């Protein structure tokens, strides 16, 4: 055993907490400055429409299969589960309503956000990280191009713009999944199911989902860019940046999902 007294051990423990807290606030501070700078460059010229367009296609179009499949099966399983659950209260009629509300409010944005975080956030971090460690980011600034404007602003804008569109498509596919199961497997009358879907869906359900989506898109791009831009030290550093981008984006998505829900629906 070592000979340190309980007092010094306790002080060491306090020092550890202090260090962890300092490191945490240091990171938060850096991230905040980075975000502020990135936002500033989003709204000041020059703009790079070509890069923006490329990112919009990359995020919006190429994520469609992933998001479509995820939401389709989620809608299907939702119909199935709520049917067996509500059967206990003889309330099977609520299936259509449950599917559309949970899809638009929660599952659409969150599932799309998490899937896109894995797909797009990772590739952004890897791409910008590689550019950083191979000095391409430095090269940009010697060619009269601000890396924030050229690399980061288009990605943030594309993320915030395209995720709502993706989620809208995902919502529709998810509701359609529920409809498929509801009508073909659970024996609902198709026109009845559709009528119940429309009847209980409110504009606020969809709008809140789209606000979430836009926030998540921004978070995904921000985490991808921040971790890539600040990565250091070769392939290992890039690998670390990629992992951090996905993990931090996923966690932030779940946190902001709660906060935005609270904002819209808590009274």
């Amino acid at each position: 055993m070592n000979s340190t007294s309980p007092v010094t051990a306790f002080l060491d423990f306090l020092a550890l907490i202090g260090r962890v807290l300092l490191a945490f606030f240091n990171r938060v501070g850096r991230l905040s400055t980075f975000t502020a700078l990135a936002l500033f460059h989003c709204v000041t010229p020059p703009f790079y429409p070509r890069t923006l367009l490329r990112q919009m296609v990359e995020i919006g179009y190429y994520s469609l299969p992933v998001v479509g499949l995820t939401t389709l099966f989620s809608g299907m399983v939702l119909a199935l589960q709520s049917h067996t659950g509500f059967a206990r209260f003889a309330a099977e009629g609520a299936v259509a309503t449950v599917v559309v509300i949970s899809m638009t409010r929660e599952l659409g944005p969150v599932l799309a956000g998490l899937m896109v975080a894995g797909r797009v956030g990772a590739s952004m971090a890897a791409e910008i990280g590689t550019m950083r460690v191979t000095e391409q980011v430095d090269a940009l600034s010697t060619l009269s191009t601000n890396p924030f404007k050229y690399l980061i602003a288009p990605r943030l804008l594309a993320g915030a713009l395209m995720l709502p569109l993706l989620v809208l498509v995902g919502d529709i596919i998810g509701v359609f999944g529920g409809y498929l199961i509801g009508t073909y497997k659970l024996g609902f009358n198709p026109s009845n199911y559709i009528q119940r879907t429309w009847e209980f869906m409110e504009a606020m359900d969809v709008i809140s989902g789209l606000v979430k989506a836009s926030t998540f898109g921004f978070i995904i791009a921000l985490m991808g860019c921040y971790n890539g831009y600040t990565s250091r030290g070769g392939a290992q550093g890039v690998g670390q940046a990629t992992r951090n981008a996905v993990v931090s984006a996923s966690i932030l998505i779940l946190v902001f999902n709660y906060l935005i829900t609270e904002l819209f629906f808590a009274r």
Partner: protein
Amino acid sequence: MISTTPAYQPPPSVPKLSLTNVHKAFGSKVVLDGISLDVRPGESVVVIGGSGTGKSVLLKSVLGLITPDSGSILIDGEETVGLRGRKRDKVLRKFGMLFQGAALFDSLPVWENVAFGLIQGEGMARGPARDKAVEKLAQVGLGPEVADLFPAELSGGMQKRVGLARAIADEPDIIFFDEPTTGLDPIMADVINDLIVKCVKELGATALSITHDMASARKIADRVAMLYKGRLIWTGPAAQVFDSGNPYVDQFVHGRASGPITMAVRA
């Protein structure tokens, strides 16, 4: 009074580039320990020195990619240490830089790499920019068929030459070459040396280069400076470099393993 030129023209006596007592340390590792160097307009200075002595760090400090810990760096008589944002962009416009690892943008084809500064910095249309890029590629000994390849499809030496074409494409005032001939065969190395001399003479550009290749140094330099242990221990005309009377320089230019410079090699 008499002068009608609107733009400020520094008097010829003002050095293009003037470093005074520049320090830079990474953690406890001191890399630059009081560098002072003046480069006159149109002059070509070559910095020689062992691997890892901080030559690349020196160039990056002037570009502001690394912030020096202390000291002053004047460009056209204007202090640039601590410049940010638009002011920094404006200073960087004067520079062209060939990075040691070429640092080509691997998401863009070769011609767009070369034309990057023209398109993004000067707003040239893509058609004429492409023609200009092909012309610059020809100057570094690359045919038009290379223009549509991607950097990953080129050999190391070809990447270096594309990097060179990119650095000189928008005819900068001041050009930095970080080991321009490393990785090239002797004949191509000499072609590049000639090209550098031509650029400096024809564009009237000021050049600061790094090289280990003494043949190259002799050809492109007006003046040679030797970096050792964070200081410029010898500066003199290129013609004198082989009989400088300085034992460090002697050992370096003749490539002798024994002498005052001892390499940290443990057998």
